Each structure stands twice: as structure tokens, then as C-alpha cells.
């Protein structure tokens, strides 16, 4: 905790003062306060959502709608809008919108924040809150014909669901008939070489150009939130974050859960463990970015290119190190509440040697990537000024991670909302102002360098760490039961961006609501913005540059 929170009372007072100021801004709408562990919460009427969010956005600079959580209580439904500021993510607020059981209607935030579009659709789909004034309120993860809302309290799991293939296949089928007959409706995905998994893009083409693209997700929906709600805080939840963003970003994901629960249950993490965590997480980031760069090259270059294999080769090296450290190549399950499960492997020198060896070879590999990718004129022609995402639009869609930083939004939770050991280390946040596919690629390549810097410093620290001070876990009780009705929303900088977790406890050892804010989910939403009016190849390239993992989009 000491490392996670600024801590001193002066800060707390400042936060309280800021909260009061915010309340003054939206005072007339606030019915009560419902403060969360991370931020002040304001309970507002269902018909004042747009007003309140608009005011907070304009006046209090809360321009980042990080997440929308919906949940059902015994007596009411509740939608929580987690707001942050792109300039300072520690400046947070929650807007809580309770709606009655018999009529769960609430005003949509989509006109204020475009990202709310998908988040509210998800809330409607899974919990059943209806949003008025929403541009397109339909199910997002589940098939259109699904009966009931799975995360609502009275949901009957035993009820058989009939999902006719034809109906689910194409809800848009009727819409297409009326079109003047010159456009072509094309399904790209779910089984397409360039969709990076099971993503379905409903595309309307005019010739080679894309008129409209509508991502259809949910093919990989595995009820991760529900799974976590059925698991105990202490042990059982931790293996699951690995499976959200499953391409080796595991430790980064685990940290999201670790951070949320450590805040919630007030658990200290020893400094030594924090350094190990930081090092492991950055190794994961390198592995994830390698794959992102490789698959992006694959999308643009076409056939089975050398770059993809080279990226995978370098990724293998990282995975070997991670395997030595955690025992697994992808599904690490290495973090524990209050630390990590294992100390560095013996013999330590050999382990450090392998990391240093990797770091020594990394600049050479990156040089190769630059020769192969970023210096290639054809690639530049293909990617510069395509898939343009202006910073304002990116912010409105809640884009984070390399996607936001490629649009020049200087936002990185590792620096702005420090956790772990990041604020003790010397590294830079990478941004590019190009706003296009090329700058997103460059951001990833440069972030690999920054991660290498961090790892190097961590290795130095760990090498000199005194032998008797190597505590890898703090003393954590065997069962954890946070106080009833504690709510927390905590985010970390995962490979794809801001990975947030909202948890509400109900006094038992399982969370009552576990909501995952996945960066890919928000980032993917920007795809129509980037590719409408562009060419099919650019659509594919933009999708590649977003670097989505469907496991994280659908959860």
C-alpha cells in the first residue's frame, strides 16, 4: 500500500477538497455521496446523467470515461460511470446512477462520451439496465435472441437458450436489401486470417472502399466476470486474469487484479516483490508488443513474412525467461496477494545472465525490425496517414495504451498513477503525434526499448538486494473478507492500455460484482472511426494496429 498510494494526509485532504469542489459543480443533481475507495462517488438521478457527465467533463476536466459498471442490488439497479482525467488519472470520480427495479431506465451517456456506446450496450446485455437516448441499444456480447440478462439476480441459468444460426448470423440482413444495390455487404470474420481471433466485422463496401464497418464481438465471451464472482479473493481469482489478454500479457493482467484487491483489503506488498513484479510485467509487455508488431506486419505484408517469425523468435526468448521465473509460458499465475509466489529461480546469477543476454541482443533485434518494417518505404506508404485517429476522438472513445499514445495522448498509468516500482525507476513515456497506423507501430517498437530500460534497472536492483530482505510475500490471512459494500475501481497499464477492475464486496470471501474494464474493448470501438471511407487493406491494417485480443474484448 505504501507504494501504491501517495499516502500522506495532506494529499488526502486535497483529494477531499477536490471532491467537494466537484460536488459543488454538479450539486443540484447529486442526491447523496457514495464514495468508493479510489474516488468520490456522486449518486445522481437517472435523468441527469448527461448533465452531470457533461459538466464534470467540461468543468472538472474529467475527460476520460474509463468504464461503465452496471450491477443489480436487491432493491435497485446501479450504473456506475468511472471518470478520470487524461491529464491526471489520479483525479477520479464515480457517478452512480441508481434505477428502480421495476423500471431500470437511465439516461445514456453516449452523447457525452462516445465510449459509453459499447459500455452501455454491455451493461444492457449482461445486467439489463436500459439506456434512453442511446444511439443503438442492442445486445453486444450475447446473441440477439438471448433470453434474460445473465448477470441479473433473477437470471435462470438452467433455462435453455435457443440461438438459431440464421437469425444470429446476420441481424442486418434486412437492412441490406434497400441499399441501392451498388454496395456490397461483406462479413469479415469471425474466421478470417486478419481478424486476430474471432472478431466479426460487418462491412459495407463500395468497390474497394469501406463505407461502413460495424464490429460484432462476443464470440469468445467466457463469462470471466461471472467466473471471478464465483471465486474467492485469496487464491481462485488470480489464475483468471492470465486468460483475458492471453498472449503473454499475463503478469500485467494479474497486476490489475492484485492492485484492486490489495487496495480493497489493505494489503502491503514488500518492496522486493514489487521489483520482481515490475520486472516480470515489463517482460510481458515486451512479449506482447513483439506479437503485436509481428502480426501487424503480417497484416500489411501479406503472406507469411519473415518479420512475424523473427518477432516470435524474440518473443520465445522472453517466454523462456518468464518460464524460468513463473513456471509457465502464458498462463503464469505468478502474483499472489501481497507479493509473488516464488522468488527468482536458483541459481540467481544464471537467471540474471539470461535476462541480460536477452537485453543485450534486443537493440540488435530492434534494429532489424526497423530495417524490415519502419524503414520500408512501401510500408510507410501503406501506413502513414491511414487509420487516422485524432487525439480528441481517441479521448472520447476512451482509447488508452499505445493506441492513445500513437495519437499523441500522453497517458500512461505507470507514470501518471504510479504503482509497483515504476516511480522509482528512470524511463520515459513514448508518444507519437502521427495519429496513424505508422505511429502506433512506432510507439510499440519504442516502448519495447523503454521496457528494456526498466528491466535492466530492476535486474540491477535485484542483484544487489540484501539476502535477508528478500520477502516475496507479506503476511496475508488465508481468507479475505473485505468489509461489506466496499467498492474499488483500480486500473493498471496493461499491454494494450488501461486495464481496470471494479470490485464490490458484500462481506463474503467472493466479490459481489467483478467488472473488468478491458482496454481492447474501448480501443476496438475506434475502428469504425479509423476505417470508414478507407480501403479494405487499410481496414485490416488499422485493425492490426489496434492490437486487440479477443479474449480481452469479450472476456
Amino acid at each position: 500500500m505504501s507504494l501504491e498510494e501517495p499516502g500522506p494526509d495532506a494529499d488526502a485532504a486535497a483529494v477531499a477538497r477536490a471532491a467537494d469542489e466537484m460536488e459543488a459543480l454538479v450539486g443540484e443533481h447529486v442526491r447523496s455521496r457514495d464514495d468508493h475507495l479510489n474516488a468520490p462517488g456522486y449518486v445522481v438521478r437517472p435523468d441527469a446523467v448527461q448533465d452531470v457527465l457533461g459538466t464534470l467533463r467540461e468543468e472538472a476536466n474529467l475527460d476520460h470515461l474509463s468504464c461503465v459498471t452496471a450491477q443489480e442490488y436487491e432493491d435497485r439497479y446501479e450504473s456506475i460511470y468511472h471518470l478520470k482525467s487524461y491529464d491526471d488519472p489520479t483525479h477520479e470520480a464515480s457517478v452512480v446512477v441508481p434505477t428502480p427495479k421495476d423500471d431500470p431506465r437511465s439516461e445514456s451517456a453516449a452523447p457525452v462520451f462516445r465510449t459509453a456506446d459499447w459500455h452501455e450496450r454491455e451493461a444492457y446485455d449482461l445486467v439489463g439496465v436500459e439506456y434512453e437516448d442511446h444511439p443503438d441499444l442492442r445486445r453486444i456480447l450475447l446473441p440477439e435472441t438471448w433470453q434474460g440478462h445473465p448477470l441479473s439476480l433473477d437470471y435462470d441459468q438452467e433455462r435453455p437458450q435457443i440461438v438459431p444460426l440464421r437469425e444470429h448470423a446476420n441481424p442486418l440482413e434486412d437492412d441490406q436489401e434497400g441499399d441501392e444495390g451498388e454496395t456490397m455487404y461483406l462479413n469479415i470474420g469471425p474466421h478470417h486470417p486478419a481478424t486476430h481471433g474471432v472478431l466479426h466485422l460487418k462491412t459495407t463496401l463500395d468497390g474497394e472502399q469501406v463505407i461502413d464497418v460495424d464490429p460484432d464481438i462476443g464470440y469468445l465471451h467466457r463469462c470471466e466476470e461471472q467466473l471471478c464472482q464465483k471465486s474467492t479473493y485469496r487464491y481462485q481469482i488470480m489464475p483468471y486474469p492470465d486468460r483475458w489478454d492471453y498472449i503473454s500479457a499475463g503478469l500485467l493482467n494479474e497486476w490489475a487484479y492484485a492492485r484492486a484487491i490489495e487496495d480493497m483489503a489493505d494489503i502491503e506488498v514488500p518492496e522486493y516483490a514489487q521489483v520482481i513484479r515490475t520486472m516480470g510485467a515489463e517482460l510481458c509487455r515486451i512479449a506482447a508488443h513483439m506479437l503485436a508488431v509481428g502480426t501487424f506486419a503480417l497484416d500489411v505484408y501479406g503472406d507469411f513474412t519473415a518479420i512475424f517469425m523473427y518477432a516470435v523468435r524474440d518473443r520465445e526468448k522472453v517466454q523462456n525467461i518468464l518460464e524460468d521465473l513463473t513456471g509457465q509460458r502464458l498462463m503464469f499465475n505468478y502474483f499472489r496477494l501481497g507479493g509473488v509466489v516464488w522468488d527468482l529461480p536458483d541459481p540467481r546469477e544464471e537467471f540474471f545472465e539470461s535476462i541480460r543476454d536477452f537485453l543485450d541482443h534486443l537493440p540488435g533485434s530492434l534494429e532489424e525490425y526497423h530495417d524490415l518494417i519502419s524503414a520500408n518505404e512501401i510500408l510507410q506508404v501503406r501506413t502513414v496517414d491511414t487509420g487516422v485517429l485524432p487525439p480528441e476522438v481517441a479521448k472520447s472513445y476512451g482509447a488508452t495504451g499505445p493506441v492513445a499514445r500513437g495519437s499523441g495522448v500522453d497517458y500512461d498509468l505507470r507514470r501518471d498513477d504510479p504503482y509497483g516500482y515504476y516511480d522509482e525507476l528512470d524511463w520515459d513515456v513514448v508518444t507519437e503525434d502521427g495519429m496513424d497506423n505508422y505511429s502506433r507501430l512506432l510507439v510499440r517498437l519504442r516502448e519495447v526499448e523503454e521496457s528494456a530500460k526498466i528491466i535492466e534497472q530492476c535486474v540491477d536492483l535485484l542483484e544487489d538486494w540484501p539476502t535477508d530482505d528478500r520477502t516475496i510475500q507479506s503476511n496475508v490471512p488465508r481468507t479475505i473478507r473485505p468489509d461489506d459494500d466496499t467498492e474499488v475501481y483500480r486500473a493498471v497499464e496493461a499491454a494494450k492500455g488501461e486495464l481496470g477492475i471494479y470490485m464490490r464486496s458484500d462481506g463474503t470471501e467472493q466479490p459481489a460484482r467483478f467488472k473488468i474494464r478491458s482496454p481492447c474493448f474501448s480501443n476496438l470501438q475506434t475502428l469504425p472511426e479509423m476505417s470508414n471511407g478507407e480501403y479494405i487493406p487499410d481496414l485490416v491494417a488499422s485493425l492490426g494496429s489496434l492490437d486487440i485480443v479477443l479474449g480481452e474484448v469479450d472476456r
Partner: protein
Amino acid sequence: MTGGDVVLQTTNATNATGAGVSRPPSAPLADSIAGMLGLDGVVGAVVGGLIGAFLIANVMLTTTAIAGPWAKRKITASFTDRIAVNRVGPFGLLIIVADSVRLLSKELIVPDGVDRPAWDLAPIVITFSALIGFAVIPFGSGLQLADPETGVVFVFAAASIASVGVVMAGYASNNKYSLLGGLRAIASNIAYEIPLIVTAASVVIFAGTLQMSEIVAVQRQPLVTVAGVTIPQWFAIVNPFAFALFTLANLAEIGRNPFDLPEAPTEIVAGFQTEYSSVYFVLLYLGEFIHIFLGGAIAATLFLGGPAGPVLPGFVWFYVKMWAFFLFTQWARSAVPRLRIDQFLDAGWKGMLVLSFANLALTAILVGVIV
């Protein structure tokens, strides 16, 4: 296709003007086979032609069989630091047998709503177009099936029939990806056909003939002698600029990276061949590979001195040159990104076309000055 017109018109043109062209130094394959069998007249021509054609076709089929299932994998693997097929037979060579049996014995799935005659014909057309081009290619060592006076024009005409096949396949499949692939194939064909032929015309200016054997013969003449080594007058050495243009346009014609838009796996899945399975797919694949080798053979004949080369017999050299071109296509595939369709057409019309005409004019002036 317009290719047909080219053949007709220029045939007449050369017949009118080509009176002074001498007979080729060695008789074409068909004639020598007929001679060996002691046949003459039409019977001899037909029998000799058929035997020769069978020989040539089988050489190319074997080459493709090695290139497609085996060499391509091995080459790609070496570019990407892998090993590739090595489990069946020595160096994995028996994968060729395994793959052909596997593919031939797959079920043929005919999708709903295909335009049946066109869909069935397309694989045949593509294979046919690639194979028939080899009729006039001088493999060296007397392996040239026929040597008509209009060889260059014929080979381009034959090669461009493949586009018809691709479009047939794309449109008949009743599949949107195929449609896109087929249309892209037309686009690439019309954009790069003219640069290709005009660049070839610059070679014709040098050689003063359209006959393949003559073009090869002209290249045999020495260009310069440096330190006792005679450098022959290969057009790739005489006019490297034309060679570069030709290679690029050739890549576009055969639809290889960076111009593999008709297939573009990451965009339109497999383009025109998406709906094909079993033997039909084999034929498309085969046709494409023979087409690459045809492209290589044309480039070798026009620019690399055909079968010329020291020590080894001419046929070996020619074969090596074809494979070198194949290797080049695979090399480009490993490291060159694909262009977007509009950029691709822009490059063709604004770049290649202008450059190829400039090249033609310059060559004409150059030849005028030399002679």
C-alpha cells in the same frame, strides 16, 4: 483478350518485314524429334510436336511439383529461420508425393450458386495459359518446341490469358472475396501489361527480331572483354534499367509480392481461389507456379541470355535462371509489403508506364547512335 489481337497483327507485320531474318541455328525440338523418328510432312510435325509438347509439359510439371509443395516451403523457412518439411523422405522431398495424393483425393466441394461452366473452366484456362507459353521458350540444348517468328509476342499473349482464367474463377465462384480478387486481377493486368510489353519491345529494338532463338543468339555476342573475361551482350547488362522495370512488371503480372493483390490472404482470404478445393485447387496452384516459372523463363530469355553460360549445358543454365527468378519472388515475399490497390494502380500508370515509354525512346536513340 487483347493478347489475341497482338498475335494476329504482329504476325502479319513480321511476315511482311521479316524477310531478311535468318533461320535459327538449331532446329526446334518438334522438328528434331520428327527427324529422329524419320517422319516428315504433317504427320511428322504432329507426332514430333506431341512428343515434344509432352516432354516440355512434363519438365514444367515436375519443376512445379518440386517448387510448390517443397521448395517454396524450404525457401520460406530459410528466410524465417525455420527448417520446414523434413519428415517424409530425404529433406522432406517425399512431401511432394504425399501432398499430391492428399490434394487429389480430397472431396470436390461445389459451392451453391457457382456459374458452372466458367467455374470448371477457370482452372484449365489458367494451367493452359501458363503451359502453352513454354512452346516458344528456348530451354537450350535443343529443347525448344517451336520457334515461330513472333515468339515474343506469342509468349506474352499466352501468359496474359491467365488473367481471363482468374477473372472467370473470381466471378463464377459466387463469393465476395473471389469477386474482389478477380477484379483486382484485371486491374493489375491492365496496369502492368503495357509496361511489360513496352519494356520487352526495347529488347526487340536491340535484337531486331521477335524470334526467341534470334534474341538469344544476339545476346551471345560479346559486349566487352575485361581482363580476358568476355562479358556477353546480355540485355540485363546492356540495359539494367529495362531489366529492373521488366522484373517489377513481371512480378505484377504473375501476382507475387509486393503485387499479390488478387490473392492478398490477409485482406480477401485467398482471393479468386477461395472456393476451390481438391483437384481444381491443385490446378490453380499449379497454374500459378508454372506462371512464375514462365515469367522467369521470359526474363531469362529476353534479358539473361537464355541458356547461355559457361561449362554446364545450356539447359541447366536456363533452368538455374528460372529458379533464380522463382527464388527472387520468394525473397520479395519475405520482406516486401503489399501495396494497396489504388497505390498499385498509381504506381503502374504514373510510374511504370511513363518509365517504360521513356526506356523505349532512350533505347531507340541509343541503338540509333550505336548502329
